[in-house]
């Protein structure tokens, strides 16, 4: 860390914070804090993008940073908070597996992700190639969060943190995707959120709770 220039050091620390955030999201029970963690994750991602844009002079990165800020930091968390208040679903108490074992599995997943990223970062020409491992780790951790959650809302938060991980991955491997794709992805995420909002209201209306064990009627082993 010492030999690299200052901005790279900051980028690496920001990546480390991202990893820490997704880890804490894995262990978190309260949905409100999860949404806040998601917002901070978005903020960190936006910061890193701005820093990278400044360092590499890729101006389209500024635009994607602005997009991330608008979407991932302001709009979506606000939407989620409003939903949480309207549906007053604050707790996602019991999970599939207790916290310590999820953390342990998370650790294993991170190790696997770093092992996986070795060949890619060896080839990457970008400055931030070392953070690819962290990006993959964030993706797999958020996948794990979705698996271990009982509430629909927390699954959605996991899904959005996976989007963040993907964006960070794109940013660290190839300084972001081509503009038209970035726009498309952002649009998709926005529409996805709208659809999810509609979903929550309908589920609430049908089952008067967002717990996923109502959504287990379509099965075949009984």
């Amino acid at each position, binding site marked *: 860390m010492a030999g690299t220039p200052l901005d790279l050091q900051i980028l690496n620390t920001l990546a480390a914070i991202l990893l820490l955030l997704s880890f804490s999201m894995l262990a978190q029970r309260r949905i409100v804090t999860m949404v806040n963690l998601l917002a901070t994750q978005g903020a960190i991602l936006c910061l890193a993008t701005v820093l990278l844009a400044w360092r590499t002079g890729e101006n389209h990165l500024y635009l994607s940073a602005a997009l991330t800020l608008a979407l991932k930091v302001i709009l979506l968390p606000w939407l989620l908070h409003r939903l949480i208040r309207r549906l007053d679903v604050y707790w996602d108490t019991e999970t599939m597996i207790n916290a310590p074992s999820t953390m342990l599995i998370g650790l294993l997943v991170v190790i696997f992700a770093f092992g996986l990223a070795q060949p890619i970062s060896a080839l990457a020409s970008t400055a931030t190639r070392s953070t690819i491992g962290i990006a993959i780790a964030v993706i797999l951790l958020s996948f*794990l969060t979705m*698996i271990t959650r009982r509430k629909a809302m927390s699954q959605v938060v996991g899904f959005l943190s996976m989007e963040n991980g993907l964006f960070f991955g794109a940013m660290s491997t190839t300084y972001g995707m081509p503009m038209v794709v970035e726009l498309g992805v952002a649009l998709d995420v926005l529409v996805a959120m709208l659809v999810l909002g509609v979903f929550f209201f309908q589920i609430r209306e049908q089952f008067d709770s967002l717990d996923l064990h109502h959504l287990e009627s379509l*099965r075949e082993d009984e």
Partner: protein
Amino acid sequence: MLTPASSPLAACLALLAAWGVVGLAGLVRPRSVEFAGRTLFPLGALCGLGLAVVAVRSIALPPEQIELLVGLPDLPFHMRLDPLAAVFLALLGAASAGISLFSAGYFRKGEGALPGLLCLEYHLFLASMGLVILADDAYAFMVAWETMALSSYFLVTTQHRIPDIRRAGFLYLLIAHLGAIGILLSFGVMQGGSWQFTFDAMRAAQLDPQWASVAFLLAFFGFGAKAGLVPLHVWLPEAHPAAPSPVSALMSGVMLKTAIYGVLRVTFDLLGQPQWWWGLVALGVGLFSAFYGVVFAAVQTDMKRLLAWSSIENVGIIFAAIGITVVFHGLGMSALASLSLIAALYHCVNHAFMKSLLFLGTGAVLHATGERNLGRLGGLIHRMPWVAWLTLVGALAIAGLPPLNGFVSEWLLLQAFLFADTVPRPFINMLLPIGAALVALCAALAGYVMVKFFGVIFLGQPREPNLAQAHDAGPFERAGLVWLALACVVLGILPVQVIGEFDQVSRALLATELGQDAAQWWLLAPTPARGASYGPLAFLLAGGILTGLTVLGVRAVYHQRVRRGPAWDCGFVRLDARMQDTAEGFGQPIRHIFQPFFGMSRELPTPFDAAPSYRVTVTDRIWAAGYERVGRSVRRVADLVARLQQGRISTYLLYSFVTLIVLLWIVL
């Protein structure tokens, strides 16, 4: 395109197409019975007759091939007419002519499906059988094979309101499909690396013995499933009786022969040099099926099921004949091989006519009385003389009694078995003669079954009062029955000419022939050296003269007064229909002697019953042992697999997560 006159194959294809057109014409006015009955079915019979004539004339001609436009882009349908195909086409044409004639008068209102639809499926069934016989590449064969199965499935389920008929239809199509999969696999093995699926490529492919045996066994399984050999026979006694009688006649008489055609085509033509031990497999399975079929036929109480079981017996005997043909051919005893092949072909043709005649007879009875259960029939000979006497011809023929055709094929088969002691293999020359004894036992049991069948239905007193209004068969039905009975008699009396035709097939398949040099036209002496000969015409003349002399002798001496009185019956006065032997009763000795074969459950009355009743149900053990067990195991696996889909979304996510990690691990 050669003009139909000069090229028989084109003529055959034109006639099959004519059948298709006649079938489609049925849809023009589907509801009217007269249109379908009076015009279309006779037209179909004419096409059948034409097909028979063209086929018989082309048996002696060299093989001929045509490629049609239809088919896969790089594998169009190949068609081929060679002596083997010509014989079976002749069989199809002649038998279907009689059956179509009969069904012209048979189908009436309320027969389940619309008459027009029935006419379409019926003629599609005939056309697809014709195509199966003519097909010369794997794709065309498979398409024709399963169209045959499909069209016959729809015919079987015409009265689909009855649950048993639906069950029979499902079982039939399922086993037919499994058989077809077996055949497809065997074709795959047979092309042996040349990767073209025309039969010529398969003939050229040199398979090493193991692969050839695998191909043979797969084909044997596939065709045996359609022919109804024992382990795979369970669908036959269900499906044949479920269909309307002309269709049962067509299925039993002709469709089973396409399976036999398939085995002959694969064993002798496509696999080139068959190995002799294959014959033992065919012989063993054939004999066991024959014995199993006839024993079960003897205990049936439904007349059509009785005939279906008897079909299994006859198919078993034909497979036994094919078995010894392969044994002789494999061991190089060519004269005997051609003798037993001719016996097999002869029995095929005989059975087609005999069994169709019997099924059509039961059809006429079913239409007259509306009753299929033997327990509620009897004494019909008085009201249905035409049907009774013509069915008697069929019954005597299938029991293998001398002047008729059943005896000729049995005689040829026993002659072939008789020389089996010259087989060089040590144990085989002892087992084969005992095989002959088993064939004789089956023939005798067939006699038993036929006496029961004819006696219980036509003779004795009518067991139900409403049998009195039974009316005889209509003109068309009589014409169909007479055509088939005539065929039985002609085949019985003129074997020498018929065997002359089959010689072409033996020369084509086994490169040897029987050669009818010494015999006059009326005497059948296949092996002059052995001095065994059988002249049915002289035999019949001598019998006729002796009977005539007896009648004249008696007339010269006898007291001519005749008085009709009540039956003597050892002096018992009140004689009613219930005192006769029932169908179960007639089968009782067989149930007693061959006890281990049957799964029997008896309901014995207890002394306290108000209305004591005794009922015995005979079930097929193979169904319980084999098929239900397979069904249970598949259900168990299905339950196991269903556990994958428990409905919780997190488990589904876990599946995809684990798949991702595993794949990444592999790629690393």
